[in-house]
């Protein structure tokens, strides 16, 4: 299921195999193919579920760039997700963009706000920076929720774009698969490149990175904008998927969803967002389906993961793989 999955360690050391920094194309092709087949043969409802998981895998992976690698915590990442969808909607309803242009505008709007808010947030570190991301998110939510004449307030904007672009679910699923695969590969490229190494150095130890000549602020800002952009891609896809946008999309629930996905998936591994999205959505749907107190179930599982396996699903997978590899 996991797309773009290569070696899941943060330190893809070049020595551990000369290919650690390059993409395992065979694996990617196999996963994409499998996913494509799944999309084509599944009944529509499963296709919808797969689309949702793919979009959230991208969103969580973008957030993971911040959490795992750049040393930042964002308490307002839904802003960039939601602004992707709002960028699409508003550019069409208020600026009469054609849909194609609106789709491009979505991620750019998200990245633009990522830049503005990012400039503010990187002035601070640790929990203070996280608090500022929260403040930025709350301001955005308040504006989107209250600026009724432009954003439609709580009843949102709909009808600006045909749901799923008017495609059949599996067709739209394939489009999403392509976009998400490319986007996650791009994120992989970011993490395992000179820039990514720089981001990770700053994220792990800003003092050492500074002594090496890296300014924390500018590099964290780059990571922030990249993360906002890809969150915006996910949000734009989500906006098209549902054919609408609501303040909820920039709201705290989507932020919390993203955070929990990454933690469940496993901090400090590239696959966290992908694993996390799959597991969290599965959990969320199953628990809610069978149990009125689904939040309780989710909460308890999170507690168990934090206490028992802080490296999340990715850590679990790695341990299993290690065990197999050790046994000849």
């Amino acid at each position, binding site marked *: 299921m996991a797309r773009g999955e290569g070696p899941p360690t943060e330190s893809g050391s070049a020595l551990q195999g000369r290919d650690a920094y390059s993409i395992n194309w065979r694996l990617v092709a196999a996963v994409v193919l499998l996913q494509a087949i799944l999309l084509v043969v599944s009944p529509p*409802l499963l296709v919808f579920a797969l689309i949702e998981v793919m979009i959230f895998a991208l969103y969580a992976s973008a957030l993971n760039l911040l959490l795992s690698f750049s040393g930042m915590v964002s308490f307002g990442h839904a802003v960039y997700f939601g602004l992707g969808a709002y960028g699409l909607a508003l550019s069409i309803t208020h600026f009469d963009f054609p849909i194609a242009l609106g789709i491009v505008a979505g991620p750019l709007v998200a990245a633009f706000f990522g830049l503005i808010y990012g400039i503010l947030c990187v002035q601070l570190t640790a929990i203070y920076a996280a608090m500022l991301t929260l403040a930025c998110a709350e301001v955005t939510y308040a504006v989107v*929720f*209250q600026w009724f004449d432009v954003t439609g307030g709580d*009843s*949102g904007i*709909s009808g600006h774009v045909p749901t799923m672009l008017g495609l059949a679910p599996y067709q739209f699923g394939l489009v999403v698969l392509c976009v998400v695969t490319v986007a996650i590969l791009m994120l992989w490229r970011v993490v395992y490149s000179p820039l990514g190494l720089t981001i990770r150095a700053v994220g792990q130890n800003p003092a050492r990175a500074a002594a090496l000549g890296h300014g924390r602020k500018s590099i964290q800002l780059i990571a922030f904008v990249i993360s906002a952009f890809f969150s915006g891609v996910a949000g734009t896809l*989500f906006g098209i998927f*549902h054919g609408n946008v609501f303040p909820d999309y920039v709201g705290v629930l989507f932020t919390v969803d993203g955070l929990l996905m990454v933690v469940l998936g496993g901090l400090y591994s590239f696959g966290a967002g992908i694993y996390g999205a799959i597991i969290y959505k599965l959990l969320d749907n199953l628990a809610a389906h069978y149990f*009125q107190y689904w939040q309780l179930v989710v909460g308890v599982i999170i507690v168990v993961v934090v206490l028992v396996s802080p490296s999340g699903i990715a850590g679990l997978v790695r341990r299993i793989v290690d065990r197999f590899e050790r046994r000849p």
Partner: protein
Amino acid sequence: MHRKKLLQISTVLVLAMGLGGAAQAADPIKIGYVGGISGPCGGLTHSAVKAMKIALEEINAAGGAAGRQIEVVWRDSKTKPDEGAKQTRDLILTEKVDVLTGVCSSSVFMAINPISKQYGVPLVSAISGTHKATVDFGHPFVFQTQPHTLMEGKALAEYAARQDWNNIVTMGLDYEWGRTTVKVFTEELAKLKPEVKISTQLWPRFGETNLTSYITAALAEEPDAIMGVLFGSGTNSLIKQGRSYGLLERTELLTFLSTESYMALGKDIPDGVHGWARGPFYALDSDKAKAFIAKYREAHDGEYPNDWGMLAYDAMHIIAGGIDAAGGAEPEKFRQALGSTTFDTMRGPLKMRMIDNTFNAPSYLGVTMMSDAYPFPTMSNVTVIPGDITLPSEDTVKALRAAAAK
């Protein structure tokens, strides 16, 4: 001989078709319920679910609708639009429901509305009050059985015009329901009674429960009345906190007061508040209403149904009635049936108009009073403002639709 044979064959055919029809009739009609069972709507929705279950039992006990039993599949939207959409698709595609109902918040309603349109599955809103789904973005298969925002704003204006209030302060929650209701109220009141002055408009943030600064700001205008468009904890906080400021001694208060507010606050609601409601069980004295309330109380430890329960019960009977009249759940026939039937509901005879699939649901306004009948205060002297007065004109509907289509 030849003719006889032909007759025989056709008889067999007709019989076979009839049998086929009978076999079909044995399948239950499926209704999908999507509502905020968890999330912010939870407090409104639980009574609706209980009430619908009672309606369902009654309908099925009486032989179902169009000769078929009715089955409801319950789904939780978590009060999230995307979740609501997901559950709705599931209901349509997997459960193959014939009709959708439920819906609490306007965002969820707006998210579900296009799905109902896309698959042509009728959606009968029982709770959500936004007019946007049926008016602005209306389509042939979305129906509203309770008064929507435009109707309520007008009803409030009608009521306010009948009082001797000349200086009014509005206090509307800063989101769509609050803003639209205040806007319609202000416009309609200006038509009905131009001399009334709206001295200031206050907009408490959605979710705000410390309203004291709003109370002092409102009272500073020395208004004849405060018109509050708040609900639930907003209304409750306003009344509780207003007490210390002598709010009711210094001015009149008109606010949304649904049954659960009375139950929550009990005697903390003083006599003399002007309340407005959508389905106040205590003010409905039809036999139908009495029977339902008795059943509801019996099933739920003497608990009273709230407004949402009343609306939901009516909605379920309307759906069943529509299916009955249409002879099935075929969407277009269902729509025609709803449009041509007068439904005998707990809120009196209700009729739907075809232009926006909206029922002429009444609004209830009155003055609170503690009585011996209930352990909490209720409204007395209830004025019923019928939906026929408050429904927006066809031109308004057309204009709003044109604006939305742009």
